């Protein structure tokens, strides 16, 4: 194994170990999305009687949301961990080694991706346990996990950029409500074509989070939908590239060497 790859693996392992050793960081992303899923499934299941609603199971419809929420948690964990490293001087210690900056980012994000995929497996398992069967089959499950990895990378890179730019865990955490606003004005609770209020429908239509949710949702309830997949992967890929570029630019300034 090359030295750089070895460093990436060790830094990714550190990222996972840190998260595992903070139970709140594990339980939060697993429990809160499931609680929201339970509440929404109970309160909004009457939506399935609306003409044109794409499924008879609201749980299947809403199961897409935890995947995006999980990625948001990955953003927070990845960003706050990095900000803490900056605040405690641990990043200075890393800066004094021959480690490549790219290895640091890759390691940090490798950890976020690993946790993102583990979370996705958990959400899927819960879905299967309550009777949801992905319409896209086993292949769709693999695509879903791949998509989970991509959005964990995209949001994790965004969190890392915020941490590198501000050096403050509090600043990173302040992004969380902003992301949640995007989540709530998306198609998380109702298909866009069934939203009656015009401004809300328009907001959900221009909100990229809607397309991330619809990508996951398509694999669960409609099967293979090329347009939804292309939009979801395209937007997640764009966010990932943009966030990685910004984080990559901010890293040398923070390493200051």
């Amino acid at each position, binding site marked *: 194994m090359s*030295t750089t790859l*070895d*460093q990436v693996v*060790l*830094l990714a392992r*550190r990222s996972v*170990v*840190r998260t595992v*050793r*903070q139970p709140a960081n594990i339980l939060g992303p697993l429990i809160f999305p499931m609680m929201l899923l339970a509440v929404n499934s109970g309160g909004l299941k009457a939506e399935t009687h609306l003409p044109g609603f794409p499924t008879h199971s609201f749980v299947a419809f809403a199961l897409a949301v935890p995947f995006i929420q999980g990625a948001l948690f990955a953003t927070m964990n990845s960003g706050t961990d990095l900000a803490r*490293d900056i605040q*405690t*001087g*641990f990043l*200075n*210690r*890393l*800066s*004094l*080694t*021959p*480690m490549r900056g790219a290895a640091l980012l890759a390691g940090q994000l490798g950890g976020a991706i690993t946790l993102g995929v583990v979370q996705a497996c958990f959400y899927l398992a819960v879905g299967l346990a309550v009777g949801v069967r992905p319409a896209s089959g086993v292949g769709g499950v693999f695509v879903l996990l791949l998509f989970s990895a991509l959005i964990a990378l995209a949001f994790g890179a965004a969190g890392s950029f915020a941490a590198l730019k501000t050096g403050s865990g509090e600043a990173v955490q302040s992004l969380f409500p902003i992301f949640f606003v995007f989540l709530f004005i998306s198609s998380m609770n109702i298909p866009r074509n069934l939203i009656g209020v015009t401004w809300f429908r328009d907001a959900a239509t221009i909100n990229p989070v809607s397309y991330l949710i619809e990508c996951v949702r398509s694999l669960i309830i409609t099967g293979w939908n090329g347009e939804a997949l292309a939009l979801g992967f395209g937007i997640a890929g764009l966010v990932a590239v943009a966030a990685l570029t910004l984080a990559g630019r901010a890293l040398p300034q923070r390493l*200051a*060497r």
Partner: protein
Amino acid sequence: MAHPNTIEVEGLVRQFKKGPRAVDGINLRVEPGEIYGFLGPNGAGKSTTVLMLVTLLPPTAGTARVAGYDVVKEGPAVRATIGAALQEAALDPLLTGREHLRLQSALQALPREDRRTRSDELLERVGLTEAADRKVRGYSGGMKRRLDLALALVHRPRVLFLDEPTTGLDPQSRSALWQEVARLARDDGVTVFLTTQYLEEADVLADRVGIIDHGHIVAEGTPAALKAEVGRPTLEAIPADPGDLERLRAILARFGEPSPSSKGGAVRLASADGDLAAVVRALDAEHVRIEQLQVHQPSLDDVFLAKTGRSLEGAADDDDGMTMGSAQT
């Protein structure tokens, strides 16, 4: 051919935005295998100097070479040569001591097969073998400092920077760390640049001391030479019989200028060596019995006082107020 383990600094300046010159044109040279104590109060510019020398902070002006490499132009070569334990022990509270060492070994690109051995060796050397698998958040301040030192030594650096390594440690931990630092310089030939605000630390550990105040080096030399520069030792004697006090003072007056003493006689010796035995012989010859005899050597605080007009012990408080709001110094 490898460069010698020297540190050479010429006209080094660091100016922070809207702040004072934290380091204002310092010059110094540290020889291979030497322990150089950089002494000064809080805010004097010690840590800023270290950050520049370890390549974490670019200088505003001047040059610095560590082990022959320029800290600005040859950063990677400098970093490959040095080890550093900065002011705060930068550790991850959620990792164990052993995990820290394994990670550091990998990041320092040690061969895989050497990592375990080197980690175990360093854990043993700093006395952390038993605590190696405990999370660092449960370590005491002394244990964290020792782990910090071990991490700085993973890649066998030729030059070691220690920024206030014993601040906040109990006397036992401090003494253990001094022993290890002295051993590194003596046995391994490591050049050590050590900042401290403790007079005793600089006095005991350093081969040479640079005293920094407000970004300027105000004195430099061996602790003995610096102390000799500002004053000769004072000898104070208390007679067993108070009736001998006048005779005692008369005898002492032969050896230097009389100095004030509340209970006995005191004299500022004309020279540091030889006089003490002569004084004892003279007192004995004239049958003056002595209850107590003390030689007061000048301290580095006296040096600081002579150079700056302030005592080092109180200077930190003064400087805290002056540097508040500026970047770390």
